[in-house]
């Protein structure tokens, strides 16, 4: 009985905290039309040849995974994972500010070009 009660409590806590703590994952095309100040996890593909280093920060464009024509400019400062480069898929937490996506420090995640993916990814 006690165990059951604790389990229910844990379940309620999980549901409650997860919906309030999570951030939405949005594609560049969705972010382009988002209200200024929207915070989100940006997911998409880094446009090849768009990566520029400006002092401490990086500027690049991120496009929809399936549609390269829709892309948003991004600025980011912080650690850059090893696999980061043009053409790779990334996830970055941040906010939209005047058509520019400002990434939070050290939140850039680059997907591993894993052994399990096709070699030309």
């Amino acid at each position, binding site marked *: 009985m006690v165990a059951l009660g604790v389990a229910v409590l844990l379940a309620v806590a999980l549901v409650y905290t997860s919906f309030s703590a*999570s951030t939405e994952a949005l594609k560049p095309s969705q972010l382009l039309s988002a209200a200024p100040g929207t915070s989100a996890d940006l997911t998409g593909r880094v446009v090849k040849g768009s990566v520029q280093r400006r002092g401490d920060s990086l500027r690049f464009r991120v496009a929809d995974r399936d549609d390269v024509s829709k892309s948003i400019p991004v600025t980011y400062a912080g650690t850059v994972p090893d696999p980061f480069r043009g053409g790779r898929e990334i996830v970055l937490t941040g906010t939209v500010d005047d058509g520019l996506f400002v990434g939070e420090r050290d939140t850039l995640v680059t997907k591993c070009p894993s*052994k399990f993916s096709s070699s030309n990814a």
Partner: protein
Amino acid sequence: MPSVVGSVALALAFLTAIFATVAALLGSRGERRWVDASRRAVYVLCALVTLCVVVLEVAFAGDDFGFEVVQQHSSIDTPPFYKLTAMWSSQEGSLLLWAWILSIAASAALYSTRHKLREVVPYATATMAAVAAFFTGLLLFGKGVDPFATLSPAPADGVGLNPLLRHPSMMIHPPMLYSGYVAFTVPFAFAVGALAARRLDAEWIRSTRRFALIAWAFLGLGLLLGARWSYTELGWGGYWAWDPVENAALMPWLTGTAFLHSIMVQEKRGMLRVWNVSLIVATFSLALLGTFLVRSGVLESIHAFGDSTVGPYILGLIATVLLGSTALIVSRLDDLRSPRRIDSLASREAVFLVNNLLLVALCATIFWGTFFPLISELFTGEKASLAAPWFDQYTTPIGILLVLFTGVGPLLAWRRISWESARRVFLAPLAVAAATATGLALFTDAADSPLALALFAFAAFALTGLAQEFWRGAAARRALAGGSLPAALLAVTSRNRRRYGGYVVHVGIAVLLIGIAASSSFQAKRDLTLRPGESAVVDGRTIVYERPTVETSSEALSFGAVLAVERDGERETTLRPSRRYFRPGGAEAGTISSYFEGEATSEVGLEAGGTSDLWASAAPGIAGVRRRARQADENFRACVGGDPGTPPQCEALSRLMRGAAANPGLRPVALAQIENLQSITAERLARGYLSDDAPATFRVIVDPLVTWIWIGGLIALTGVLIAVWPARRARRAPGRGGELEALKEAKYREIRDAELDHAAGKLSDEDYAILDAELRREAVEILDRERV
């Protein structure tokens, strides 16, 4: 030709697995003939799948690019070690690995139970053979996963292995994880067999306990190797990120841990039967889910696995396993009911139950967090994800409670503990825990993190309790047989491997958790941008960027730094972090600039120590190098084009190029010439970095006690080895009455256990007298059965 051998062996393996399933089911009606046939079929299956693996490995070793899988995942330049391990970097290769490990584990399990569990084994064989049929069938009929697909004509070279994965632990990590996943099939299959045959005593557990323990150890080792790789090879300095794929391997490990504890309650007390079969079903399903997550792409993970065609099939298998097992458990509920109840909350079984609930709660939390993107998409239409802080807020407190109960469990006796005995065994651990907490709070800044302080105190409690167990066990042995203390310690351990092996595992886990708590709570991390000669202070140490370094090899250009670490004016150590830019191949090559834009990996500068690790990664400022590379590319173009004003050597080159344009036969020569020139130029440009005086960005981390994570893991592994090592008596060839023999052994062990508990002060004289009499009566009953 070899590919035909492989294909035929695979097809035969599939048919053999089907035959073994059918024969085992026929044998379940009582015909020994069919049972023997099914067991031998599993041995044959193992031989056939081994042949498939050998064919593929020979192809990898011999650069046979006629095999599509070899061409896609290896190349002539790939070092030999990576050629042999490249097999499981492919989808088809890793599925074959699954089938191979399964066939080995199934053969071992059936060999060791050939004289036991007559009613259970046929169903268990059928279950394992059916899973083997699933995986061999998947390889045979699945789209795009034929390991023996050929390319004609065979290409001259292969694509090669991704540079990021060229790390020894990355090659050992997948087979370790897989061995863990797969070995859980054995206890699962025997649980199904026990349910189907209604033989729900603890015999199926006794027969498969070793497999469960080995599976657990492999899975743990796989997790540890993955963490180690992340720490030393990826430039971010962490070892765990709550990534879906990490979680997928952790979840079955947690339920497996719970299973290993709760089966002891069934062995000793005949309780928790429904719980045990449910746990092993959950563990096996989670292991399959781990395989599925890696193979599908349903979750956003840093491991971007290719969308594959095999995902839905594995999902189908998980659904079958869950539905079938649940139906089986529900239909056997009457047989599963235990005649006994828990006597007292202050007993080992009660603590095991609490630890089980905590482990399952931890697993459920991680499950929810891992699959939250799918859950949220279902309810809100948006894929939303949860980050590490969300996981931490649940896993940290649950983990701390687990450490507490890890400490309490071994101190309690089965059934109940008297007030008097409790005082005796808890006194020292409680005193040490209190002293540790006070000492840390007074003399260090551990109090800044109350949760970490609690963990340290609980870990001190657990470690003292374990030390006391060893001490009292050895003392009891000495009282009985004399000898020196170390000899007594050795004797008592080797005579009670399960118990003391388990204690060693607990020591390892406590040490590992201390390492995790310290390194995650008290880490000092700074990002610095320095020019050569400049310095900065991190956590009381001065980091001096002494000079840049450049290394060139046929594989990569590497830009690094020499960092001097000084403390109180004295040089403590030197760190040499660097970043390697791998030379591009194929379509990405063509310009000198491309040499600096390819795949790059961090080589971490690491000074590991007992109290703390110094960790540094570097992001060199190679903007100058790149600018000169672009300039060189332009010059090169002008040179080849024969533009006016270019040096005289250009003329020869430009003639060669014009010749190649007209005569395709000359092209390879011209290309080789250009590649050679570009390579030399790139190396010269790279060396220019030394005199650039360019700023580089460093991440420097001072990570306390992180080494103890790896040491704790090794201690735990040693404990597992002690626990699974066969006792000398058991190595005797089992006769026909193997099962009764095992039952007798188990009862004797219980009597010895009670003796030890009494000697260690956990059982009061009165309780011991009652328990001992009861156990001896049960032992006599078994002996009577043997005489019949």
